C-alpha cells in the first residue's frame, strides 16, 4: 500500500485514485443533499452537523466531562434502550413463527425451542433481554433517585420515566402469558384477578356495586375479553405486547430522550 502526504503534511493511507473517486462522490448533488455539512472539524460545523442530521440530532454538540463518566450513571438508561431495540428485533422474528391461538401457542413456543433454525437463541435472547430490561430500568431509576437527577428542571422527565417503567412492567406481564404454559397462565389469572379489585372499576373492588359493575362489565373483562383466561385473553395479551405497548413506549421514549437532550446531563453531586 502506498502512503503519501496530503496538503497538511499528514500521512494518508488512501491511494490517490480512490481519493479522486471519493472526491467525485462527495461533489455529487446526491451526496450533498444527504450529508450537508462535511467533515465536522470546526465548532460551527459540529453544531451544524448535530442540527442538520436526523441520526445525530439526538446528541448534544458538547458534553460536559462529568457526563462522560461511566461511574456516574453506569449507562443504565442507554442499556435499557439497547435492550428495548434488541427485544423489538428478536420479538419481530419470533412473530414469524408464533401464533396466539390456544391450540397452537404452546406448541409454537416449543417449536421455536427445538425446531426453528436459531429459534432457541432468539427466544432466549427475548426472554433474558426482557428480564434484563426490567432489571436495568429499575437500576436506572435508582441511580436517578440517588443522584437527585429528578430535581428541577427535570421533574417532568422523571414522571415520563415512571410511565416508561410501568409500560416495561406491562410488557413483561403481557409477554408472560404468550407461551401459554402453566406458569404464565396462572400468573396472569392472579394478576388480572387483582385488577378486579380496582376501586370503582373492578367487580370485587370498593364502591363498584353502586355503579352496577359486574364480572361481565368491569375492567378485568376489558383486559381479558371474557370472564376467564381463554383465547380472547391470549389474543389481547399478544396485541398489547406486540403493537399497543411498544408504540406507547416508543412515543414516551422519544419524549424522554428529547427532554434529556434539552436539559443536558445532570452533574455530579
Amino acid at each position, binding site marked *: 500500500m502506498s502512503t503519501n502526504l496530503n496538503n497538511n503534511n499528514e500521512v494518508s493511507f488512501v491511494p490517490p485514485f480512490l481519493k479522486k473517486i471519493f472526491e467525485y462522490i462527495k461533489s455529487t448533488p446526491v451526496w450533498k443533499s444527504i450529508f450537508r455539512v462535511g467533515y465536522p472539524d470546526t465548532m460551527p460545523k459540529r453544531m451544524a452537523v448535530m442540527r442538520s442530521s436526523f441520526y445525530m440530532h439526538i446528541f448534544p454538540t458538547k458534553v460536559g466531562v462529568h457526563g462522560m463518566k461511566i461511574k456516574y450513571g453506569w449507562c443504565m438508561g442507554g442499556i435499557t434502550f439497547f435492550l428495548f431495540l434488541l427485544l423489538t428485533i428478536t420479538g419481530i422474528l419470533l412473530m414469524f413463527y408464533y401464533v396466539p391461538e390456544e391450540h397452537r401457542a404452546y406448541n409454537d413456543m416449543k417449536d421455536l425451542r427445538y425446531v426453528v433454525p436459531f429459534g432457541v437463541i432468539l427466544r432466549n435472547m427475548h426472554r433474558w433481554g426482557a428480564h434484563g430490561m426490567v432489571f436495568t430500568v429499575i437500576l436506572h431509576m435508582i441511580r436517578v433517585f440517588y443522584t437527585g437527577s429528578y430535581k428541577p428542571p427535570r421533574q417532568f422527565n422523571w414522571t415520563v420515566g415512571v410511565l416508561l417503567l410501568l409500560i416495561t412492567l406491562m410488557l413483561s406481564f403481557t409477554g408472560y402469558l404468550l407461551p401459554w404454559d402453566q406458569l404464565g397462565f396462572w400468573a396472569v389469572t392472579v394478576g388480572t*384477578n387483582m385488577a378486579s379489585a380496582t376501586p370503582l372499576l373492578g367487580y370485587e373492588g370498593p364502591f363498584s356495586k353502586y355503579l352496577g359493575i359486574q364480572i361481565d362489565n368491569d375492567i378485568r*373483562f*376489558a383486559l381479558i375479553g371474557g370472564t376467564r383466561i381463554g383465547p380472547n385473553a391470549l389474543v389481547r395479551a399478544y396485541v398489547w405486547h406486540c403493537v399497543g405497548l411498544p408504540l406507547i413506549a416508543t412515543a414516551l421514549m422519544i419524549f424522554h430522550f428529547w427532554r434529556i437532550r434539552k436539559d443536558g446531563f445532570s452533574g455530579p453531586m
Partner: protein
Amino acid sequence: MDKENEFEKRVSRRKFFNIAGWTGLFAFFGSSGAAGARFFYPKVLYEPASTFNAGKPEEYTAPAGNEKAVVDERWKKSQRVWMVRTKEGIYAMVAICTHLGCTPNWFPTEVRFKCPCHGSNYNTDGEVVAGPAPEPLYRAKIELAPDGSMIVTTGLLGIRRANLQTQKKTLGVFWTEEEKGVIWKPPYFLQLKA
C-alpha cells in the same frame, strides 16, 4: 346603535366559532374515546357453557363410618367443580380459589383443599381454615332434570357469595348463620336419603 350591533357585541362571530369549534373537537374526541372503550367489551363470548349434567346422585359414593364427606373430583378438570357427597346429600363447589382465582387441590388424607398459588386452605364446607382467601369457596346450583340427573350451574354471576349476602358489607372466612340458611337448602344443596 341598532339591534344588529348589540347582538354582535353579545355573541361575536369570532366567539361563536370559537365555542362551536371547541365543542365540536371535544365531542369528536369524547365520543371516539367512549367508542374506543366500548370496543374492548365483547358482546358475544365463546366460553364453555356454565351448566353441565353431573349424572345421577347414585353415582356418587356416600361417606362411610366416621367420614364427614366424600369429595368427587371427576368434574374438576372439565368443569372446575367438586361434587361433595355428605351423609345428608350432595353439593357442588367451584374449584376457584376466592383469593386470586387459582385452582386448589384436594388432599383426602388432610381433609383439606389447598391452593398452590398462595397457600389458602379450605375444609369440606368450603370455609377458609388457613391462608389469604377472604371468603369461602363458591357453591354451584344443583337442579334435578326430569330423568333424575343433576344439572349443575357454575355461572359466576349466580354463585357469588356477595349475592348470598346481598347488601351486607362484612366478609368472613366462615359461613354466617344467615348464609348457612341459604347454602344448605336447594338449589345449593340436594337432599338425599342416607
